[in-house]
Structures are given as C-alpha cells and as structure tokens.
C-alpha cells in the first residue's frame, strides 16, 4: 500500500476531513470494495458521469464544508433520466448554497444506485489508552439506538474479525433471518481486516467510518465513507 497523495493535498489546503469522493478513492486504492462513484464538477459532467455509470444513479453534494449532506438537501436518489439529473443538480446547488453560503463546493458525486442488502457499519477511532480501535455493527437503529457493536484493538487477526461479527446480538440477521439472503461473512471479514491494515499503515488517519456497508450473499460493498485525518 503506497502513500496516499490525498494526504499532501489536505495538508496544503489546511483541512482534515476528506470529502466522500476523496474517502472512497482512498478506500479503492486500499483494495476495499466501494460503490462506483465519479466526481462531476458541473451539470454537464453530472449527466456524462450518469450515462457512463448507468441509470439509476444518486447525486450527492461534494464539499468538504458540508457535513450533513442529506439534511441540507444535498442528496438526490434513484435518478433515471438525463432530465432528472439536470433538475437534481440544480436543486442540490440551490439548497446547499442557501444552507452553507460560504461552502467550498467541488461539485457533486455521482454514484450507482445499489441493490438492497443488509446494512452494516465498519469504523475506526483512536482511544487515548489503547490507540487505534476498530468497530463493527449492524447499521441504522442497531448502531444508533441499541449500540449493538463490537470492538477490537488494531492490529487484529482474522480470528478477531470473525469474533467481532459473531459477537454482536444482531448476528442472526447476517445469517439470513426469515428467508433473507445470508450475508457473505468472509467478505465482511476481509473488509474489516483491510481496514485494520489501512489504519495500521497510516497512523495519520484519526477516524474512518464506512456507513453503510451493504452485505450481500456474495460480497460486501461500502456505500458511504468518511475519513478524518489527525
């Protein structure tokens, strides 16, 4: 895993939060499966990117200053036609400029709408006593309300990653609850191990969160990502 050029760029620009697009690019380089995403600087590029990726797509505001993308009207989902892309682009720009008049805007990220799967979360942070730690849990209310998550100290072994997944109370959901497709546990294990490795090799990463990761029967795919540097 080579050095990530993005770290230098952030240093130059004096910021610590990577945009969603930058985060995904970094993860892709680290060999972690992420949903296909392109950065479009303007409306025209948004249309072109959508056509290349293939409909349906989602547009999301790409700005280091916009933290709550959905709340500020910066996200449009399930867009199926060129006309819808154009309209969505304009609406996003209008809404975000109103909420964040001084935000630096890179454009929008165009990403493929993904098929539904079981939502999980993989994250890392730094503990004052134990240093970098990694977390796994089910997404949505499981993490927010029930705090059904497991932790390990980085670096971890394959055995640790496997235990992390089995430890959460919601594990039966990943095994295929009530006819739902069972999730591919080895794919999740591999993703957790790669994240652990990424953090081990790059101590300048302060926090990382893949939320959600969609767990499928055959694979796992990170749909949104957020990386903060020290």
């Amino acid at each position, binding site marked *: 895993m080579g050095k990530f050029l993005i770290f230098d760029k952030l240093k130059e620009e004096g910021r610590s939060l990577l945009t969603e697009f930058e985060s995904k690019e970094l993860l892709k380089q680290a060999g972690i499966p992420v949903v296909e995403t392109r950065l479009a600087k303007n409306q025209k590029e948004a249309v072109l990117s959508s056509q290349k990726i293939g409909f349906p797509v989602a547009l999301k505001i790409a700005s280091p200053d916009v933290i709550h993308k959905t709340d500020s009207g910066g996200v449009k989902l399930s867009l199926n036609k060129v006309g819808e892309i154009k309209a969505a682009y304009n609406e996003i720009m209008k809404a975000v400029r109103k909420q964040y008049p001084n935000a630096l805007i890179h454009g929008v990220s165009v990403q493929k709408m993904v098929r539904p799967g079981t939502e999980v979360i993989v994250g890392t942070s730094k503990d004052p*006593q134990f240093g970098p*730690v990694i*977390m796994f849990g089910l997404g949505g209310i499981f*993490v927010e309300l029930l705090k059904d998550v497991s932790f390990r100290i980085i670096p971890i072994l394959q055995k640790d990653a496997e235990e992390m997944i089995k430890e959460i109370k919601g594990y039966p959901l990943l095994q295929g609850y009530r006819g739902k497709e069972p999730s591919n546990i080895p794919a999740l294990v591999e993703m957790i191990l790669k994240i652990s490795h990424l953090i081990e090799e790059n101590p300048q990463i302060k*926090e990382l969160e893949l939320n959600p990761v969609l767990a499928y029967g055959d694979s796992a795919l990170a749909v949104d990502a957020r990386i903060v540097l020290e």
Partner: protein
Amino acid sequence: MKGKILEKNDLALFFEPKSLAVIGSFREASFGGYVVVRTLLNAGFAGKIYPVNPSYKEVLGLKVYPSVKDVPGEVDLVLIIIGCRAVPKVMEECTEKGIKAAIIVSDGFAERNEEGVALQKKISEIARMNKMHIIGPNTAGVANPANGLIPCPYVTGYERIKKGGIAICGQTGMINPQAFPYADVNYGVSKICDFGNKSDVDECDMLEYLENDPATKVITMYLETIRDGRRFLEISKRVTPEKPVLILKSGRTEEGARVSASHTGSLAVDDQIFNAACKQGGIIRLEKFREIFELPKIFALQPLPKGNQLGIISYTGGVGVLATDEAEKYGLSNAKLSSETITKLDAIFPGLGKTIVDIGPGMVVVTDFMSVYPEIMKTVLRDDNIDCLLNVIWIDPSGDLIEGYIKTYKELQKQFQKPIATWIYGPRLPAIDDLALRLEHLGFPVFADFEMGIKALGIAWQYAIRKKGEK
C-alpha cells in the same frame, strides 16, 4: 547487586530485598513505621531491617539510624512513611546511599491537591535521575510471604501469610494484609502489590515481573486505569498462555464516552475498549470485588478441565438446577453419566444415578451414610463423561460429619485430574468455616456460594480453551 541498574521489568529488589530501611515514626501506634518493623519481625523477614529516624535510638531491639546515610550496610529497598512534604529530601538521601527501590507509603500526593501533584512530580524526577524505582506513593505496599516480607503499615493481628501461587495486585490497599484475613482463611499468596498512585511501577511492570516469578501461578488485579494500553495488551498476549490473568476494572460506565461526530468515536467508551483488549489479550475479566479473592483459587489449587462436561453432586435438586442455569453462561453443560456409573450409583441408593446426583434422599435413610459417600464421589469422578465437578456439601450443626468429608477428600487427592469446586452450607457458621478451612488446606477450593463455584469452573474451562488454542 552493586552497580546493577534496575531494569524496569525487574522488580526483584521490591520483593526479594536482602535489606530494608524503614523511614518513619517508631512511636507505638496502630499505623506507621513501628507497625512495619513489628510486622516484619513477626513474619520472620529473611533480610536485614534498618529503622531510620533522628529522634529514636532503638525500636523493638533494633538500632535506629539518624539518617539512611548512616546505615552501615547496603540497602536494597527503602520504605518511606513520613509526611509528604518531607519525602523529597529523604529521597535525595536515599539516592545518595545508592538505593534503587522505594516504597512510598506516605499520602498527600497527586491524589490530594495541586501541591501533591507537584510533590509527586518532584519525587518522580529524583527517582528518574538516579535510576531508582518507586511503588506508590499512597500505597499500603507489597508482600512476599516466602521470605517474610510483610512490611504492612497497619496492624493486622496476625503474623504470617501462607506461601502459595496467587499474586494479588491493585490500585487500592483493599488487597493488602490489613484488609483481608489472609491468615485466617489460610490463603496461599505469592506476591501482593498495591500500586498506589502508580507514579512509576504500574500494572505492566508487575505483569512482566510475575510472568517470570516461579512462585506465581495465577495473577489477579484490581485496576482503575491502564497507563499504557498497547504495552498492556502486548504483555497480556505473552503472559496469559502461561498464567491466567484475572482483572477487575472500574469505570464500566459510559462516563468516558467522548464527543465525536462518528458513531465509532462516540461508542468507543472505555469499557467497550477494555473488553476488546481482554478478549485479544486472553484476560479473564472479573465483575465483583469478592471475585478477586475467590476465583484465582481454582487455578492455584486445581487442574484445568479437559472438557466442558460438568458433574454436580448435591443434597438438593434445587441447587443443582440453579447451578445448571449458571453453568450455561460459561459454556459448561450438564454431563450425562455413563450407564456403568448409573448402575453403580443406583446400587448404592435407588434413583441416585441421575444427571444431578442428588444425595439428599439417601442421606436421610441410609444408616452410616458417610461410609458410602466416598464411593459416590469416586464413581462420579471416575466417569469419562465428566470433566469437572461441583460438589455441594451439607454440614450438620455440630460438625459430626466433618471427619467423614475430610477422609473422602483425602482419598480423592491426586487421584483424578479433574477440577472440583466445593460449596458448603448448613445451619452453623463454625462448622461450615471449619470444614472449608480444612478442605482448602488439602488443596480443594471452597467457594462463597455455588454460583461462584460454577463461575470458577467456567473460567477455568474458558482458560483451558485459550491455552489449547495458543499452543
């Protein structure tokens, strides 16, 4: 030892000093230098004792030196028990004397106020500059029963502690000789250490020392903080395949939760992270203070179970059922007796050959029940389907049955490589205590209640799995 620089992981001077200077008051009291000297003399400390104080000439038949610098011989360890403001000056004198290890009992340091924080910084600096190591300040000290090193600053009312395999450490004096009836319960100890304010020697140093201490078979600790989490994890990974490490840690609340924009950051509370460290480091996490003393006994006195099949002998079915529920939590399951065992037990008393061997009904009707009791225990323990045993004993008020139980357990000694946890109940405390003491003397741990006995067998089984996995 001259000229030797104490390595951080070599705490031998603290536990095996050939000479010990005690700097404190030698007025007769229930706390202080006088008590330290008297306790050391009573325990038969194997090294030289040098009391130090300019105001005294003699204490308990020992010459008192005006300053540590006046002591004629070499001093391996100093114990300082004076007002906190006087400690730095005395420390300077100790370094001039070439002393490399200091137990600072005095309080009034970082635990108290700003002035104390500054004082602690000062003594740490003096120690660091002179390659001296400190246990404390604000500590009740250490103990090593093997050489009579019990420099306890409080009156204990007993003289000696039995040598044994259990090392007990903590950030509290609640584990020291004045706080637990070590002698009365005949508790076998290898080392005791109260870290106090942990200005220097901490849990990691102690783990490394105990790792190489042949007397220590099991380590139990009470911790409030962990100073270097990563070092702690690294050492734990190395120690736990060799010796079980049991830790009670405070701070299980979410107080430590940090404000963070991400879920990971806000959910990464101290307790969750420490739990993770325990799993990766193979540490057995305790839940209650009493467990610090109770649970290590299974490791110190009994072999590890080879499987998870639990046998239960009880005077009452109720306890058997409750014990079975408890056992499930630790992955133990009720053993099915072999047909041979069932036949043998049923021959002793009809209906005895059940999964929970209930001896209550037979006890009442069989004349001279104690004559068949040893055979019941041996038959159950001999069964290949059984890996460990909870034995529930009822003791009569006058203790008439004691000799029968003792005789039985004596016959079991070293015969079966299977751990036995015992719980004793009955109407009179003197009989219960008498039997418990005598059984533990034979090497069979008796637990405060049957849930604790089950937990002891449960953690022994979990430790056995880990040990197998590592080898």
